[in-house]
């Protein structure tokens, strides 16, 4: 059946008490820092830090699963591409005969993977400790266009809506004697013809939805939207935000100095 539209479950950890508005900053601060930094150590360090953060946010299991599930195959794939065929390969790590594994390529691959994992990890933690309604409320309260906020929320809701439609149709089919249970193959055969209409009607629904929103005052001029969910922005939030920005700036400066071979 239809599920709540994000992965937030209340866990009462410190992370939840940070304003959602601030929680999107690490994605950029950590992610971009990992990308610009000349070597992979910052990225690796951040990943270790994220694991610790996940542990204290009571998300360790799921976090590990997603990081490994995504990290291992992508690492292998990138090492294969860049390690064997990277154009910058000079130092040969191992000679396989027809192909050689190059050090530069491997490092390049690890760099990409670590940056990706930093993005993925921060996003995962943000998503699991933030309730989307709150995030959007706090974004619009801080000046983001309500239309953008609507887009975010509505797209997150498309899936549960389709699930709802599917289950309604399946019920109707069962009532008319179509067997919707049974072997996987059988269920597949019953399910596939439904997909088209469900997706289509969800799209036309999106159109009808726009009209409701306006009859309920959406897009009214010269009124500042308010929110039922609590929007807060404390001093701690402010400090955290400046620390995150500071982190990125420091990384940037160190990067420039390293590139200029000053340090």
């Amino acid at each position, binding site marked *: 059946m239809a599920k709540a539209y994000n992965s937030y479950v209340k866990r009462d950890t410190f992370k939840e008490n940070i304003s959602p508005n601030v929680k999107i900053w690490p994605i950029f601060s950590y992610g971009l820092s990992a990308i610009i930094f000349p070597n992979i150590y910052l990225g690796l360090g951040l990943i270790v830090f994220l694991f610790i953060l996940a542990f204290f946010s009571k998300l360790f299991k799921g976090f590990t699963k997603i990081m490994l599930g995504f990290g291992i195959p992508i690492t292998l794939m990138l090492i294969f591409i860049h390690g064997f065929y990277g154009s910058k390969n000079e130092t040969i790590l191992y000679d396989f005969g027809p192909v050689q594994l190059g050090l530069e390529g491997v490092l390049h691959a690890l760099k990409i993977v670590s940056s990706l994992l930093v993005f993925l990890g921060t996003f995962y933690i943000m998503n699991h400790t933030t309730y989307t309604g709150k995030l959007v409320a706090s974004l619009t309260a801080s000046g983001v266009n309500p239309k953008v906020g609507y887009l975010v929320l509505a797209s997150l809701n498309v899936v549960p809506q389709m699930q709802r439609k599917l289950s309604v149709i399946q019920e109707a089919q069962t009532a008319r004697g179509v067997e919707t249970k049974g072997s996987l193959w059988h269920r597949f055969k019953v399910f596939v013809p439904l997909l088209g209409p469900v997706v289509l009607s969800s799209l036309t629904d999106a159109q009808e939805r726009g009209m409701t929103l306006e009859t309920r005052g959406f897009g*009214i001029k010269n009124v500042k939207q308010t929110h039922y969910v609590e929007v807060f922005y404390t001093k701690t939030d402010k400090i955290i935000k400046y620390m995150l920005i500071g982190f990125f700036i420091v990384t940037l400066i160190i990067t420039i100095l390293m590139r200029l071979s000053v340090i």
Partner: protein
Amino acid sequence: MREVVVKVEDLKFRYREGKKRALDGVSFEVFKGEFFCIIGANGSGKSTLCNALVGLVPYYFTGNKKGSVVIDGVDTDNSSIAELSQKIGLVFQNPFNQLSYTASNVAEELAYGLGNHGVPRDEMIKRVEYVAKLMRIDHILHKNPLELSGGQVQRVAFGSTFILEPNILVLDECTTQLDPLGSEEIFDIVKELNKTGITVIMVDHDMERVARCADRIMVLDKGKTVCIDTPDAIFSNPDIVNYNIEAPDYVSICKALKERGYYSGDYKITEEPTVEVVKEALVK
């Protein structure tokens, strides 16, 4: 002179995909505080008219519109749908159309319009609580609106419009998914709201209910205004069958008694007066 809050003049509208006009010359006025009902067969244009009252026609449903709709002194042509929502609220025929699909629970759904109108949060919480109690949905406030039964959604839909406290409430068959008891409950609320001065414009297929509630009734046929009159006048008019409208059974009871010479007065349209008539006839 009573204050006119809705004035529709020679309104014609053809949907862009439509061959015939859905509205083809509709004119009427609604007074402040009035309970105004609109009846007519399926496809006679009732929903289209409701959409025109809140500005969805022609902004949302595009097509060819002629004539004018004036709500509380403002021509819908000169106002946005969102601005109109401060004066007039519509409860849709299909309650699922009413949902914002951005709320993850019923409380947020109810509050959605308030947020757009910039109502402060403390006030919002109070109003949500009040409306939830009134609509008897306070036990499902935490539920996802997509996980409700049809009747529950209809209550949420009604509540989410009514919570905005519009002076004019348009109800397009807003109890189709409710059980008889549930729909009576909603109508009692509507009647209460009407007593406090809110103008109600209601589309409904239940003629007995219309006869009971309405101050005046407009009959719509193939997009045209056929007549506007009091319930007594409308339902005792034998011509209404031509428009696929069936008067409440009470009218046929009175008619039958009259034909047999047991009764000589006006046709009655509601239960109690009819009971009196029948009693009188029994004595004879």
